């Protein structure tokens, strides 16, 4: 009975988070085109609905009804498996993201944390583990398509994701050293009480370098401009998903956007204080509305995540694509030494100024 109830509550939480993520993906597809349009002094999509706000629904319907083509000579099993392998790791990471304050409410005699699906004590490692699985979808999709453009796109992506994953992991180590925990909930709680406690600025050693390395590397890991080498149009048609159409293509597309949201959530939680407001406490608490103070926290989290998502679009409108050897040299010879140096300095600072 209790297990059944717990399962039902967990499933409800998962459904709610998945719903929000999918909704955000829909918003992002429109927001990206609108932001790019605004930056390039044009309108963006305007046809479907007022100001084009129904464009994501039209796009979704179009992809849903498109013919599903499996190219001749493709490996049917892996061709089908690859989009799923790309999408699942992107979605599964949200299980440990704290969207709001860590409070427990009691429902039917069960202790429930409403804003995090599962507060496991290795949260950030869990996200890194599943992020590294995402590469399989891309590599296998490229290989199974039986097309040289797809294969080259997939191989490029494999090299790129492995290289930059390393930098993401090393950039996070500084924050872990300062907080002494791998749980995203505990890391966020340690940054409460104003923006000077956020790890990007916090004493004894601000993680500003780690923050920059993390943001650049996560842009590379999600294969976005200026690191979108795996799908460089001018060289590789559309990269690893050249041969994909219909819903299978949509899976890759959703996976890319879900990954963007995930890395933005991690960046917000690790470096910018997660759901903490930039001032101590919350305004709603001061004016006597403690019961709905969590709303303010959730809004702050959303603001931080959307700031990062805007940054993705901004980069896309601003920067040209790197060449492949530049990408690799930048990752291994610039990002990696900075991340390693940051770990050494943070360890020294954490040793001399223990919390």
């Amino acid at each position, binding site marked *: 009975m209790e297990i059944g109830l717990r399962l039902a509550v967990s499933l409800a939480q998962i459904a709610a988070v998945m719903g929000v993520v999918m909704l955000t993906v829909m918003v992002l597809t429109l927001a990206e085109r609108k932001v790019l349009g605004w930056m390039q002094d044009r309108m963006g999509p305007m046809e479907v609905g007022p100001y084009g706000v129904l464009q994501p629904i039209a796009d979704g319907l179009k992809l849903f009804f498109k013919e599903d083509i499996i190219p001749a000579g493709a490996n049917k099993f892996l061709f089908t498996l690859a989009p799923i392998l790309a999408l699942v790791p992107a979605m599964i990471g949200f299980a440990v993201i704290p969207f709001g304050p860590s409070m427990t409410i009691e429902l039917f005699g069960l202790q429930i944390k409403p804003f995090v699906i599962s507060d496991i004590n*290795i949260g950030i490692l869990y996200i890194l583990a599943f992020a590294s699985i995402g590469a399989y979808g891309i*590599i296998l999709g490229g290989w199974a398509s039986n097309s040289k453009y797809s294969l080259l796109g997939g191989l490029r992506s494999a090299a790129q994701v492995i290289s930059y*994953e390393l930098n993401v992991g090393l950039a996070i180590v500084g924050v872990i050293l300062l907080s002494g925990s791998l749980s995203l909930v505990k890391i966020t709680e340690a940054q409460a009480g104003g923006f000077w406690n956020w790890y990007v600025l916090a004493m004894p050693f601000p993680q500003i370098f780690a923050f920059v390395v993390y943001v650049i590397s996560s842009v590379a890991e999600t294969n976005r401009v200026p690191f979108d080498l795996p799908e460089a149009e001018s060289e590789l048609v559309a990269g690893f998903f050249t041969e994909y159409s219909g819903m299978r293509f949509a899976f890759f597309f959703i996976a890319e956007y879900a990954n963007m949201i995930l890395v933005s959530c991690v960046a917000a939680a690790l470096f910018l204080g997660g759901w903490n407001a930039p001032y101590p406490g919350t305004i709603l608490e001061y004016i006597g509305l403690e019961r709905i103070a969590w709303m303010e926290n959730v809004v702050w989290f959303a603001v931080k995540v959307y700031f990062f998502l805007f940054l993705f679009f901004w980069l896309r409108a601003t920067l040209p694509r790197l060449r492949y050897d530049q990408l690799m040299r930048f990752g291994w010879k610039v990002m990696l030494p900075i991340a390693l140096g940051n770990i050494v300095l943070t360890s020294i600072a954490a040793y001399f100024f223990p919390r």
Partner: protein
Amino acid sequence: MDHIFFFYFAGVIAVTSLLVVALRNPVYSALALLIMFFHVAGLYVTLHAEFLAAVQIVVYAGAILVLYLFVVMLLNVKTEERYHNQLPVAGLLGVMLCTEVILLLIQSRTAASAVPGDPVITSGNTETIGEVLYSTYLFPFEVASLILLVAMIGAIILAKKDIGDTVQ
């Protein structure tokens, strides 16, 4: 409940390990290995070793196996037949190993039945591993890092063939 999970994970590990060597398409072998890594991580979780489980996936599934796939795809090996002619040798070794396992099982029946150690739940899995690794097992840890360093230098020397020319 614990037993159900153990037998599920152990069974899948055994089956997929067999598939890794039995399948003819190297890409399928790599995928079977991926499934095996995940179930080994699952076994760690049932033992309350979450840190090891996550590291297992990050290191083996996320990095090493991706490199394997990379090589398999670059070589474009469709099927690998070389190792399927070793049936007599493999059979002989298999019979020997099976005999040993059966002998061990009989021995453990007669002797005091082996009790698995209690899972260590003290201050948290990650902290415990860190403390043990840097105190009790410091020397083996340093030796392992030295070996890895040597391997790294070796790889650089192998890859950089013109290293002698630039010095002169």
